């Protein structure tokens, strides 16, 4: 059963169209991440799902029921806010039970639910404290406890980790993921952080300018980005995208970067049937940084593709070395093993994984193959 269905949803503020015909179907138990740069409409979409904002047109269905005219409290949802939104004058206990109190849940039942959630989140010792006496991570837990105690059809998370420091963010990320695996809840999670999206989601909806650019599982989004925006947004560093020309010879298509230059790079593609109509035309070629490595790396059984390319800059990160180089005159980033440090200004050999090359139509910016 679809836990959440969004149909042709649009939102306009005066002349500004924030959401343009969103369609999403989210299955029960899925962890869906809405990801995109700020201003892409993801938070507006979440607010509309919650009922805190109203759509200009289109419908929202939760658990098979159209909820457009149903107030937030009756939508069977719970929400975790970026600011946590804990009630400052109430204790942790009161914060968690406030919703049940509003819904007139019996006292004994409230206590039971509170005890369960407190144990699950390990916040039992904090129940008597006020939010101001809690650390950021503890506040985060209490905010989640307030949502969990409701046991709703749908959990909504609005950038819940962006107020935490980097270390705590990673910890909480894992904890939320573990929590999802344990209780099997349906979650819609908004973030601008593509790493959060990749690590936690079962499906990612990448949003940009009020449109869902791609809605797929993380591997698909990463491996086959639907368009240039997704290719450049997901991944850190992002996918290298370079103008190129598609040619073909007897043994298949060849993509040429910097065609006609003395240092042009010719990359033979494997099975790229979808590329056939683009032979002889300009394309945009996308290569992930991890598909460009030091010359000695072996990517596949095929004859390795190694090119000599000038190195412009080297960034050692400890775990790997990021290299800015030029392929056929176009800048590209490579991730190579940490102990190799090519000299900037000189050329060095780089191995390329041609199996994972993406091609985009330069006009529509859509993925060709």
């Amino acid at each position, binding site marked *: 059963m679809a836990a959440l269905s969004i149909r042709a949803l649009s939102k306009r503020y005066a002349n500004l169209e924030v959401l343009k015909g969103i369609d999403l179907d989210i299955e029960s138990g899925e962890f869906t991440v809405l990801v995109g740069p700020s201003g892409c409409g993801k938070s507006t979409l979440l*607010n509309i799902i*919650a*009922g*805190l904002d109203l759509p200009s047109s289109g419908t929202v269905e939760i658990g098979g029921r159209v909820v457009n005219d149903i*107030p*937030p*409290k009756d939508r069977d*949802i*719970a*929400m975790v*806010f*970026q*600011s946590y*939104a804990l*009630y*400052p*004058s*109430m204790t942790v206990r009161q914060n968690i039970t*406030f*919703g049940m109190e*509003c*819904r007139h849940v019996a006292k004994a039942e409230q206590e039971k639910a509170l005890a369960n959630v407190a144990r699950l989140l390990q916040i039992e010792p904090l129940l008597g404290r006020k939010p101001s006496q809690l650390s950021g991570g503890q506040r985060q837990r209490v905010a989640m406890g*307030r949502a969990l105690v409701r046991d709703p059809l749908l959990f909504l998370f609005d950038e819940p980790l962006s107020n935490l420091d980097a270390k705590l963010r990673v910890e909480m990320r894992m904890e939320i993921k573990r929590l999802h695996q344990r209780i099997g809840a349906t979650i819609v999670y908004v973030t601008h952080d593509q790493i959060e999206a990749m690590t936690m989601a079962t499906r990612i909806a990448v949003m940009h300018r009020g449109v869902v650019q791609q809605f797929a599982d993380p591997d698909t989004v990463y491996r086959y980005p639907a368009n240039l925006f997704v290719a450049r947004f997901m991944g850190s560093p992002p996918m290298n995208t370079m103008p190129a020309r598609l040619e073909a010879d007897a043994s298949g298509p060849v993509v040429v970067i910097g065609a006609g230059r003395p240092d042009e790079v010719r990359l033979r593609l494997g099975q790229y049937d979808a590329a056939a109509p683009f032979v002889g035309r300009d394309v945009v070629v996308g290569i992930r940084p991890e598909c460009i490595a030091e010359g000695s790396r072996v990517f596949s059984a095929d004859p390795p593709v190694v090119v000599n390319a000038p190195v412009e800059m080297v960034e050692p990160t400890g775990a790997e070395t990021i290299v800015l180089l030029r392929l056929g005159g176009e800048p590209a980033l490579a991730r190579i093993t940490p102990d190799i440090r090519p000299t900037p200004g000189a050329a060095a050999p780089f191995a390329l994984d041609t199996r994972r090359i993406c091609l985009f139509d330069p006009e529509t910016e859509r993925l060709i193959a």
Partner: protein
Amino acid sequence: MRERTFAPGRILIYLVVSLVAAAWLAPLAVVVLNSLRSNEEIAQASMIGWPKQWAWSNYATAWSGFCVAETCAGIRPYMLNSALVTIPATIFSTLLGAVAGYAISLWRFRGDSWIYGIVTLGLFLPQQMRLLPWTIVLRDTGLMNTLTGLVVIHTIQGLSFTVLFCRNYYTAIPPDLIRAARIDGAGFFRIFWRIILPLSPPILVVTVIWQFTHIWNEFLYGVTFTTGQQQPVTAALIALSAAVADIPQHGVQSAAVMIAALPTLLIYLIGGKYFVRGLTAGAVK
């Protein structure tokens, strides 16, 4: 290096400050001293002078014996009148202002900023301009020359101030709190009582002090809309000084002024430290 205590600049500062303070405090000193001098003493010497004998009886007379407008019960009944006007009007205007400020700042609705603008516009209208409209209202509602009438006036006019202050205070409250509470199932008034009001003491102290002192000290409406036994103490003080007597009763009058000023003084002493804190208190982080 230790700062030099007797730097010339510093001496000048203290000098100026002392002069300003003296200028401000002189009238108070005259009233305090006169309230402790007998009428004869004031009449023989001058309005300014040190008491030869401490005439504490002035206070007793002012409180319960002095004759104002043909009744000789001192200013006690008028103090009671003032309290009966000031206390309810302060409570009502503060509570209504808090609810209105909460609605305007945290429940955005169509035209909210217009309503806010119109309500606070009342702060800029001179009091005299409002006399005639109030006369008509009090006449038509039958509240002329009643304490209830004054309560109504001060409650409504107080809203300009209380809405302004409460609204500005509440805009610092994160709107996510309201959204979270709405999802939790709380309505407008439950959110107000359980979440907003517990955050409000700093601003409520400010509005209570402000309203109390203004309503207590208010004179124009009191003297215009009430007469005789219905007057608040500020109006009665004038009647007292205008009372025809053989000898001017400066001593008793001064004592009456001191008594009338006491409640606002007490409010400041009790709430003053919260007053400044409330004015400067910012967000609820």
